[in-house]
């Protein structure tokens, strides 16, 4: 028996890739034709929306029962989603695209944006993730927010988020995506700033909002450009018409969509808000800033695959951004001492993997979504566990002040460990399948990206080991009055359920319900052959993961961790602690110029024209001085501005004529 | 060009007369001053001394002045209308009647509101 076959026997080799020759979905059937529960698919987002509305309108009177309602409704959506999933699986493969037009919003003859939903394998996958993980996090929040006086409001916002996110992924056209897109942005803003009495939270919320707006402008411009080019914003019509548009147009649309995706998914260069967003309550970090909203950018890119496939420039930029962010995120995660910030860096990095996957084109879309679903489970698990750790330690976030918690918080440690297994790429857990799928595909398309991805996989294992060791192992470093205790079952049970997903999700989606075959009709698939044969590649990736774990263990579990972060560190660590200077970058590139421009305009408007009058007046001496006495108030400067404007117009018209 | 000759002549005469009378006055006029002569010339308005920072200002004079301008403009329109009355016919008559009625309305308003009472 050769060593390779031995490895094949031990390591599961399939990575969930679909069989060859995928047939794209051809037919679109309406919900009415499909029958069953399909005509009710609007309830998916309507239920949580009703929850948010009730809790907000009824107000304090719902304080006592509001959170129960808010938990019940996403669970209702989840049950409905399961029914719909079962029904969809029963449909023939080529028919799995069901649309439901709720209301047709047409005007101006040509404008046609139906309030229409679309359920296909891609969107139902997201719906399952959002409602499933969302429900668990709702339940977890009952315990986590039990002491908070504004718990009802928290649940209202959480429901609002779930509704908006479901709308985003169910939409049948870009305009409706935009509505959901803004909705999740709003919910994120509200929830990050939920503890707004903390300045840091208020600032973080504002920052997240502003940076998201930069991306949103991209989406709105893309929609407008699509409308101008194709005359429609409905997915199927746009994708059908895309091959006829010029490549330049498609590249611009693609890059604008990418700008939107980059803003929402905290990718380079709009990544800086994500770490600050950790100021929000931990369930929010788990649901919005790990499992669902931040992956909306990946959804947008994969959903628009028909556009990206036709523009090599746009898709290359996706790839480049994925590679950069993947590395940056891992780097930051290695250096941060706050548990949530480290996890946030990890999220950036993992989404970078997804972007990398999506940037590979048809060879990678399937794996990007596969990894997204896996990430949704193991990262939610990790965040909830981290929240549980904080909950049990008086909201202490600094890992340097944890240590040895494995005794006091056994269940939490188990859950965190499951998440650790899920992310770090050990067989046969989640990332072993999904991340390696991306790496395999990358090595076939772009060797450089593939090698970087392999390297970052090692960093992933390293920083996860670092977190695990600093939190649960080593000697206790808590403060005197800190009494670590396990969280109540209402928190630990959701964590454990997610742990199961983090452990066995990959196996399930490869062997039981092959995700590749499920998604490929929507995303398309092309086999790519890695430059390294499969078995050595698997072994290499396993070796890299083990090296990462070993290094991390050696550094943080076997040695004492100082309670105060050491300062005599390499420049790499310093940069990582400062989030790679993303804030400085943004400030100098976006914020300062904007501030200066606004200030300058205000100043100009208020004073300089008046000053100009004065300057001219003193310039022409006594006569000017006397003329000024005739003028009253500031109206003179306004009049001067009008006169200047008239001259300006004259000059412009005359100049334009000259050319 | 011919049509402008009378106008230019008139303008020239007016200028001559103005220069002549001002010049003559400085030479021939008696120079006896009194207080009124040192006051600012305000063409009929009472030159109320103003307290520093502003104070009450009599507006009556201006009300009358504005009434004067309204009727002045009325005359500007009435005069050519009267000259061309025949050729303007019934339409011209009705239009001017409407104009006069419209002018009367604010006049009535001002009258009723006491705008014409000096005190």
């Amino acid at each position, binding site marked *: 028996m050769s060593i390779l076959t031995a490895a094949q026997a031990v390591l599961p080799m399939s990575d969930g890739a679909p069989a060859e020759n995928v047939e794209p979905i051809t037919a679109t059937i309406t919900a009415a034709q499909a029958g069953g529960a399909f005509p009710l698919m609007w309830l998916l987002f309507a239920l949580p929306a009703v929850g948010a509305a009730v809790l907000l309108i009824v107000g304090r009177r719902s304080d006592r029962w509001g959170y129960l309602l808010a938990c019940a409704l996403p669970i209702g959506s989840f049950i409905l989603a399961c029914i719909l999933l079962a029904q969809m699986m029963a449909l023939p493969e080529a028919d799995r695209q069901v649309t439901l037009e709720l209301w047709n919003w047409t*005007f101006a003859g040509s404008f046609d944006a139906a309030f229409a939903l679309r359920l296909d394998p891609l969107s139902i996958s997201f719906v399952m993730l959002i409602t499933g993980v969302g429900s668990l996090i709702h339940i977890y929040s009952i315990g986590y927010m039990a002491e908070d006086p504004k718990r009802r409001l928290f649940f209202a916002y959480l429901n609002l988020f779930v509704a908006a996110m479901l709308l985003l992924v169910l939409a049948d056209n870009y305009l409706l995506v935009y509505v959901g897109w803004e909705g999740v942005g709003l919910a994120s803003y509200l929830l990050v700033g939920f503890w707004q009495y903390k300045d840091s939270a208020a600032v973080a919320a504002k920052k997240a909002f502003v940076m998201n707006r930069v991306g949103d402008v991209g989406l709105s411009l893309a929609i407008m450009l699509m409308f101008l080019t194709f005359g429609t914003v409905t997915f199927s019509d746009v994708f059908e018409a895309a091959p006829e548009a010029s490549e330049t147009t498609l590249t611009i649309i693609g890059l604008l969509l990418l700008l939107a995706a980059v803003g929402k998914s905290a990718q380079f260069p709009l990544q800086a808000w994500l770490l600050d967003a950790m100021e929000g309550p931990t369930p929010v970090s788990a649901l919005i800033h790990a499992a669902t909203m931040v992956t909306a950018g990946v959804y947008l890119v994969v959903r628009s695959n028909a556009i990206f496939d036709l523009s090599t420039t746009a898709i290359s930029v996706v790839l480049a951004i994925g590679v950069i962010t993947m590395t940056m995120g891992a780097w930051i995660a290695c250096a941060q001492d706050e548990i949530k910030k480290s996890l946030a860096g990890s999220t950036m990095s993992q989404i970078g993997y997804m972007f990398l996957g999506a940037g590979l084109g048809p060879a990678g879309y399937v794996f990007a979504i596969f990894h997204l679903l896996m990430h949704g489970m193991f990262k939610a698990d990790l965040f909830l566990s981290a929240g549980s750790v904080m909950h049990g330690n008086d909201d202490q976030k600094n890992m340097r002040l944890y240590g040895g918690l494995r005794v006091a918080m056994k269940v939490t440690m188990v859950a965190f460990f499951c998440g650790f297994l899920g992310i770090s790429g050990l067989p046969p857990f989640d990332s072993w399948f999904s991340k390696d799928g991306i790496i395999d595909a990358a090595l076939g398309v772009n060797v450089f990206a593939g090698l970087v991805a392999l390297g970052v996989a090692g960093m992933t294992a390293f920083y996860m080991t670092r977190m695990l060791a600093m939190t649960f192992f080593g000697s206790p470093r808590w403060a005197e009055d800190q009494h670590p205790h396990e969280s109540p079952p209402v928190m630990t049970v959701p964590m454990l359920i997610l742990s199961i997903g983090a452990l066995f999700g990959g196996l399930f989606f490869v062997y039981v319900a092959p995700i590749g075959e499920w998604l490929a009709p929507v995303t398309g698939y092309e086999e790519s052959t890695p430059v390294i044969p499969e078995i050595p590649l698997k072994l290499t990736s396993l070796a890299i993961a083990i090296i990462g774990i070993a290094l991390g263990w050696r550094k943080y579990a076997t040695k004492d961790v100082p309670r105060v972060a050491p300062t005599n560190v390499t420049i790499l660590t310093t940069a990582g602690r400062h989030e790679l200077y993303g804030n400085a970058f943004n400030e100098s590139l976006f914020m300062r110029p904007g501030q200066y*421009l606004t200030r300058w305009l205000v100043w100009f408007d208020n004073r300089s024209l008046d000053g100009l009058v004065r300057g001219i007046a003193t310039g022409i001496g006594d006569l000017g001085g006397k003329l000024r006495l005739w003028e009253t108030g500031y*109206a003179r400067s306004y*009049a001067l501005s009008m006169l200047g404007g008239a001259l300006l*117009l004259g000059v412009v018209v005359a100049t334009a004529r000259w050319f | 060009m011919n049509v402008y000759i009378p106008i230019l002549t008139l303008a020239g005469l007016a200028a001559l007369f103005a220069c002549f009378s001002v010049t003559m006055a400085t030479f021939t006029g008696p120079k006896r001053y009194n207080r009124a002569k040192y006051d600012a010339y305000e063409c009929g308005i009472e030159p109320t001394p103003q307290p520093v920072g502003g104070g009450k200002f009599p507006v009556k004079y201006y009300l009358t002045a504005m009434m004067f301008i309204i009727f002045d403009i009325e005359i500007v329109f009435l005069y050519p209308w009267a000259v*061309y009355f025949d050729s303007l016919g*019934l339409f011209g008559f009705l239009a001017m009647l409407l104009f006069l009625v419209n002018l009367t309305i604010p006049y009535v308003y001002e*009258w009723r509101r006491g705008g014409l009472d000096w005190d």
Partner: protein
Amino acid sequence: MTPSAPVAFPDIQWLQLAPIIVVLGAAAIEVLVEAFAPRTSRRSIQIGLTFAALIVAFAIIVINAGTFQLVVAGSAAVDGPALFLQGAVVLTALLVALLMMERKVDPSGDAFAARASAMPGSEDERQFTARGYLQTEIWPLFLFCTGGMMLFLSANDLLLMFIGLEIMSLPLYLLAGMARRRRLLSQEAAMKYFLLGAFSSAFFLYGAALIYGFAGTVSFGGIADAVVGQSQMSGLLLGGIVLLCVGMFFKVAAVPFHEWAPDVYQGSPTPVTAYMAAGVKVAAFGAFLRLMYVAFGGEAWEWRPAFWVVAILTFFVGAMIGLAQSDIKRMLAYSSIAHAGFLLLGVMAVTPDSLSASMFYLLTYAIATVGAFGIVMLIRDDSGETTSLDAWRGLGRTHPLLATAFTIFLLSFAGIPLTAGFIGKFTLFASSAAAGEGWLVLLAVIASAIAAFFYLRVVVIMFFSDPVGSGPSVATPSWATQTTIVVALIVTVVLGLFPQAVLNIADHADVFVR
């Protein structure tokens, strides 16, 4: 001089002119009411007359729908755009009139000074206020202004246009100075508005004179013929266009002719501010569109560069300075400046589509503006309305319905989907892009994204910041203001959801008669 044959009685199209005649006639009657009716009954008579005139005028406008002709020997036009925008003006006027009659929000009376002639802070003023006097002259002034607007936007020659402009402006100068509270600010606003308005009128007149020198006529059709017959552009023509545009840019508050707007909006009584922001914008843009489309449309490529500069300046300056405002009325002023910038896209495109889009935009903007100012009237402290944004903190907690209504208006201004403002922006930008101004639309979209910030900032202030002290103090309005706000709200939402019917009307009215 021998008398020639009598001038024939010209054919005057009474029915077509009736809306303007009704409004101006009612205004004249109201002056007589002021003269003869006893003081105690004046207010109710004036209000009755005002509403009757506006409603009758609106009914006649509806009856006249479909008219497409020049009237009064070609000096005025009654066509689709004129009727549509006159309708918009009259609707706006009805809503504003409701705000003007509001007497419940201020314990001492309506929004206007008890006696505008009493010196601010004087004993006279105190006594007039104590006796509950009301300045009922606001009603005839208001109707004159409305009639002037209607005339302004249907004028088809430069002289009548100027007359319309002045009939519209002069009463506004007066009304601007009549605020009950903060009277010095109000009088300063009136003075500034008057001085600068007169300055801009001079530009307009000088432009008209140059155009007359070029074309030998003041009628738009005649000017258009002269322009088309021209092989070499005349300096007179270009100079005239520029000067006329300066006059119009001032009225629509385009940068750099905008500086009066924030001061005047802030100082004027709020119903008057609402009318300035809504009615004047509609009328001035209606006239501007007619002027540029009918008279100078053949030479659009000559004057368009000037519009590029002004439009870009306008929407960017409006959006960016609006961000820095801490006073709600000044902020809405900068908002109206930014909107003027967007509307300039419609003026310079010179296509039927952009005409109908501009008209729809104007309608939606005007209605939402009146609604928004209606709410501004209600936020008060001891010294009257308090327009500082700080006073709006926490409004969403204490008065959720009111805050929601204001939010909807702001969302409409920002052009968020499902509001009327979105449809307006969308159709306007789309038509402008179709007219080949794609790059300008791109800039406009960026500017509207910036503008969306300051609208959303207010939303955030209302819903997510803690009230200062005991929270905002909100007056409970009478049915009149409530009606205005509710109607404006319904129009804004319904036109956002089901715009097609009104868009169809605008589309059928997308040609100027010439």
